[in-house]
């Protein structure tokens, strides 16, 4: 059974249930139960002809069962008349979903990434309601107990309720800002998958693939939004290098030393085409610039032939569009490649005034690299060792220590 195919209808199942029963919380819960039922039954019985209609039918039944048992409880407690006419509690026949079928995905994305929710809750709810993943799968992907993840999801839905947000498109003026939040959530899902992609995760959901799938969906819905295209391009151009990011021993291989013949050329081509197209016809934004930088690297025949002047110019642009210490750190590397290590090191000295950054391994890893370039091996070794002590990634720690030992 192709997993992705039927999970992508999850937002439409939720949309159909919300329109019918006007209760996002229950609709989302019922859709999840329907997905679990499908996962249990379809491998044995086969996928139904119309998976979406099946899921809506089962979801409706679950939702009504829930309403009925709540109703029975209320009756017992209040000894009161039923609050809903009986005909509302009859399972509907299978039917085609109403208008705005595919808009449901976008509506749901915007709702799941509502600003009232904490980032971790946005991620959890998006993966469940839009991605159709189970709570258990999401918990496993983030290496937390299922109860913890369930709590994030229920907190998210509680916040949505409290904020009065509903399952419908926000006012047009709000959409651009809300969409930025969605893209950030998808970006976080991608980076989580990207950094965790080492070794023993046989049965873990591939968050990188999931992020790409959801961003593809968003791009299909909003083909004229340059930042959606930019984010998708950035993901593809980064994912393209995955086969070369680690060697046979499982060790991290830095970009400059990667075997470029192992890069996924289909992803490179698609990413380059996407970002080129969006840069020429849409409003510029930070994801497009990051994708453009990734494209410069991906198109270079070798590390030595990288067009660093272009990378430097793009980081300068990115620093204006979305300033931040990581951007400045990366610009320092590009600056060093263009003007020499001393220029890059001067930028780091300024950055180190930031106390939080001074304890971050990236700053010291970059410093080590630039010191190594300048021939100051003793201080380079110290910086590599300090960086290796500060990182919380085991592959990165090993890599930084190897760099120190090689000096």
């Amino acid at each position, binding site marked *: 059974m192709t997993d992705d195919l039927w999970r992508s209808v999850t937002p439409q199942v939720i949309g159909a249930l919300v329109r019918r029963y006007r209760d996002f919380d229950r609709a989302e819960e019922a859709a999840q139960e329907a997905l679990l039922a499908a996962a249990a039954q379809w491998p044995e019985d086969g996928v139904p002809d119309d998976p979406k209609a099946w899921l809506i039918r089962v979801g409706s039944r679950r939702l009504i069962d829930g309403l009925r048992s709540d109703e029975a409880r209320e009756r017992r407690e209040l000894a009161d008349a039923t609050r809903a006419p009986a005909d509302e509690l009859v399972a509907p026949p299978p039917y085609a979903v109403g208008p705005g079928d595919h808009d449901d995905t976008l509506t749901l994305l915007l709702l799941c990434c509502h600003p009232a929710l*904490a980032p*971790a809750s946005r991620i959890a709810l998006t993966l469940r309601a839009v991605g159709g993943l189970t709570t258990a799968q999401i918990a496993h992907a*983030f*290496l*937390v107990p299922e109860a*913890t993840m369930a*709590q*994030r999801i229920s907190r998210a839905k509680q916040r949505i309720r409290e904020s009065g947000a509903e399952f419908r498109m926000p006012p047009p003026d709000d959409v651009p800002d809300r969409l930025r939040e969605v893209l950030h959530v998808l970006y976080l899902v991608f980076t989580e998958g990207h950094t965790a992609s080492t070794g023993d995760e046989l049965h873990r959901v591939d968050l990188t693939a999931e992020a790409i799938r959801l961003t593809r969906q968003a791009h299909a819905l909003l083909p004229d939004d340059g930042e959606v295209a930019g984010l998708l391009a950035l993901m593809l151009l980064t994912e393209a290098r995955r086969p070369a990011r680690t060697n046979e021993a499982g060790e991290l291989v830095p970009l400059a030393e990667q075997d470029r013949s192992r890069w996924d050329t289909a992803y490179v081509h698609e990413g380059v085409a996407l970002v080129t197209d969006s840069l020429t016809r849409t409003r510029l934004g930070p994801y497009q610039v990051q994708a453009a930088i990734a494209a410069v690297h991906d198109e270079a025949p070798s590390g030595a032939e990288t067009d660093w002047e272009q990378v430097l110019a793009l980081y300068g642009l990115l620093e204006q569009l979305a300033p931040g210490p990581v951007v400045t750190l990366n610009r320092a590397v590009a600056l060093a490649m263009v003007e020499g290590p001393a220029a890059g090191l001067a930028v780091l000295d300024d950055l180190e005034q930031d106390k939080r950054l001074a304890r971050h391994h990236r700053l010291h890893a970059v410093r080590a690299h630039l010191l190594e370039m300048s021939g100051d091996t003793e201080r380079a070794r110290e910086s590599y060792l300090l960086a290796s002590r500060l990182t919380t990634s085991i592959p990165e720690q090993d890599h930084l220590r190897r760099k120190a030992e090689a000096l």
Partner: protein
Amino acid sequence: MKYLLMIWSNPQTWGHPIFLRTPEAAAMTDDERAGLLRAFEDLMREISESGELVTAQALADPLTARSVRVRDGESLVTDGPFVEAKEQMAGYFVVDCATPERAEEIAGRFPDARFAAVEVRPLMGGSAEDL
């Protein structure tokens, strides 16, 4: 990003919650002790409901600890914790939170932080820190 919060304490007698067994808590009024307990329960509720609490465990009395050393192939087992100190680790919490600042904020709200300390250590293998 996941963090281990280690609860260090120097209680008069062992038991949980450990902060109520400290000399400082013993010197407090009943109301003040009830206030400590309430603060702790509020914190537990908050981090459970937010989905930040990953796991937690109280530890048995250090009196029950056994430290195992193997030297030259010989196993030597001694009574008591490995580190000889007045303060002992009384329990641990693993939290998954958005920033290191948030982890420190949670640590600071344990009553134990007022008496001994709550040590915050990032776990390896966590996702990269978002700056």
